């Protein structure tokens, strides 16, 4: 029995796992080859980047990193701080607001539920560019233009319906017996949400957090539209200027800053992925 459980959970002995390692490493290398090229290019002088195919630089130059970091005022330290604040607030907003909304949709019967669920889905079906002008109008009238508000307040109002839908799907995989037995024990809906649904929803919440972080962090267009240079510039906006159709062609700096811009998102992913897949002991609660 112990042996079997061991086998099923896939914890094979190290001596047998090397073919899998080999296979995975080959896959990973193919997957990340373009990124290796980018990493190599970030150490090359500008004149070599577009003319050489070999990702390995013939000599290492750190100047792309140093010059790129200071390429504009106030500099990338500030852009990273701005980007992280926006992405961090957006994560909090989405996790809180979307889980509340999802709980209501997944576990309650109320009037117009189907219609509201439909409206929620329809709200994400219109392409972003068509909404840009009317949205700008709204945020301008609210006096939010040139502040971070348009970039994170909507998340606290659960406008990212994808995540509501994601959480609805996850809540629905949780057996209803859990709520019901808690209800019999005298828990109200708020208690059930906070002490049963929210903890059990952890994989979906972490998923939402990761995606929100990465998508918000990379959301070039909204940041360009709603923020203004110099103080509130963000990483993607600052990067897009490095290679510019009106003349500037600092490819080395672009690649160097791209490498650095991946660091926060990569760290966020590396740290949180284990929480997604740690799983939740649903059985223990029953």
């Amino acid at each position: 029995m112990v042996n079997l459980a061991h086998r099923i959970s896939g914890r094979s002995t190290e001596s047998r796992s090397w073919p899998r390692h080999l296979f995975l490493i080959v896959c990973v290398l193919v997957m990340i080859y373009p990124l290796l090229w980018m990493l190599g290019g970030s150490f090359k002088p500008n004149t070599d980047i577009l003319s050489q195919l070999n990702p390995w630089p013939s000599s290492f130059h750190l100047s792309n990193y140093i010059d790129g970091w200071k390429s504009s005022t106030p500099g990338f330290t500030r852009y990273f701080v701005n980007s992280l604040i926006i992405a961090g607030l957006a994560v909090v907003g989405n996790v809180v607001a979307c889980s509340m909304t999802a709980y209501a949709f997944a576990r309650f019967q109320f009037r117009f539920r189907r219609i509201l669920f439909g409206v929620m889905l329809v709200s994400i079906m219109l392409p972003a560019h068509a909404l840009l002008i009317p949205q700008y109008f709204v945020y301008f009238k609210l006096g939010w233009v040139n502040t971070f508000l348009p970039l994170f307040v909507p998340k606290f109002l659960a406008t990212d319906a994808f995540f509501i839908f994601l959480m609805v799907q996850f809540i629905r995989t949780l057996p209803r017996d859990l709520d019901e037995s808690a209800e019999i024990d005298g828990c109200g809906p708020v208690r059930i949400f906070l002490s049963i649904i929210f903890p059990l929803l952890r994989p979906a919440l972490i998923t939402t957090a990761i995606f929100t972080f990465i998508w918000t962090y990379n959301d070039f267009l909204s940041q360009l539209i709603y923020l203004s240079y110099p103080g509130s510039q963000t990483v993607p906006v600052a990067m897009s200027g490095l290679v510019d159709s009106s003349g500037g062609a600092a490819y080395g700096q672009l690649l160097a800053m791209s490498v650095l811009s991946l660091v926060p998102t990569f760290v966020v992913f590396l740290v949180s992925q284990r929480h997604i897949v740690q799983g939740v002991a649903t059985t223990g609660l029953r």
Partner: protein
Amino acid sequence: MASLSSEVTTGRHLARKTAKPSGHSVRSRRARTKAVPYLFLLPWFAGLILLTLGPLIGSLGLSFTNFNLLNAPKFIGLSNYRTMFTDDPRFLQALKVTFIYVVLTVPLQLALALGVALLLNRYIRGLGWYRSAFYLPSLFAGSVAVAVVWRQLFDTNGVVNKLLSLVGIHGAGWISNPRYSLYTIILLHLWQFGSPMVIFLAGIKQVPAELLEAAGVDGAGTVRRFFSITLPLITPVLFFNVVLQTIQAFQAFTPAFIVSNGTGGPSDSTLFYTLYLYQEGFTFFKMGYASAMAWVLLLIIAVFTAANFFFARFWVFYPDERSGGRSRG
């Protein structure tokens, strides 16, 4: 939205509820807390009214106008919609490109993501790093750097052609030849399969380990365990991914924009629907027409999503609507 009804299951659920011995007390409590769902919906509702609905209706309004972004919009009735279907070959080309893209990327990416998720679900040393490495390409969305890298790979003199020439094949200009350009963008999208992979990983982890163990005791092999336990139990997540990926594929903009430099070229071979919409709206100052295009796309997506929900009732399995508790082996 009638087809959304599989999502919203009322009858079956309530029938089960009343059958329970404790049904009465649960129902009376439910009556007392009738306001509760609305309380939970409050932030979303505020967002809908204040931020979402206005722009949505605004863009619908603009779709009946001639609007150059700078002057007040002029009402022209259905004229934009008529032009689209009767007098705009680029619109039809954009539809064609987008349909090919959706039909190819959605199933391929989901298969890839599910396959890798299963591979990375079993314990192996350095698992976190492997997962992160596979997710790495998805970390950068529309960065200019991706365009630079992609061109270095698929250029006439790029890495791919250098490799092909080793085996004696004279490769084409993959990005620049209208025959292949769309497929390199599809490849770019497949390369970034991280998001559905993560959702699958999360879904697979919701599958109770003791069910798999029990099946293992009964002698079911890995493949049987997958098809008879894991797959049915992750259908809600699979369904979510299908719906999400379909919607996102129809709205795909960034890959085409960065690879073709916003042109949709060569020869309109990568003119995605939203890219054309963007050109009309912002490059050519025809925001009325772009808005009309947006609403046609909304209708197309809504039909596909409704169909997805309709067919979901035949294959998506929700543990919360099963009658009786989960069997314990």
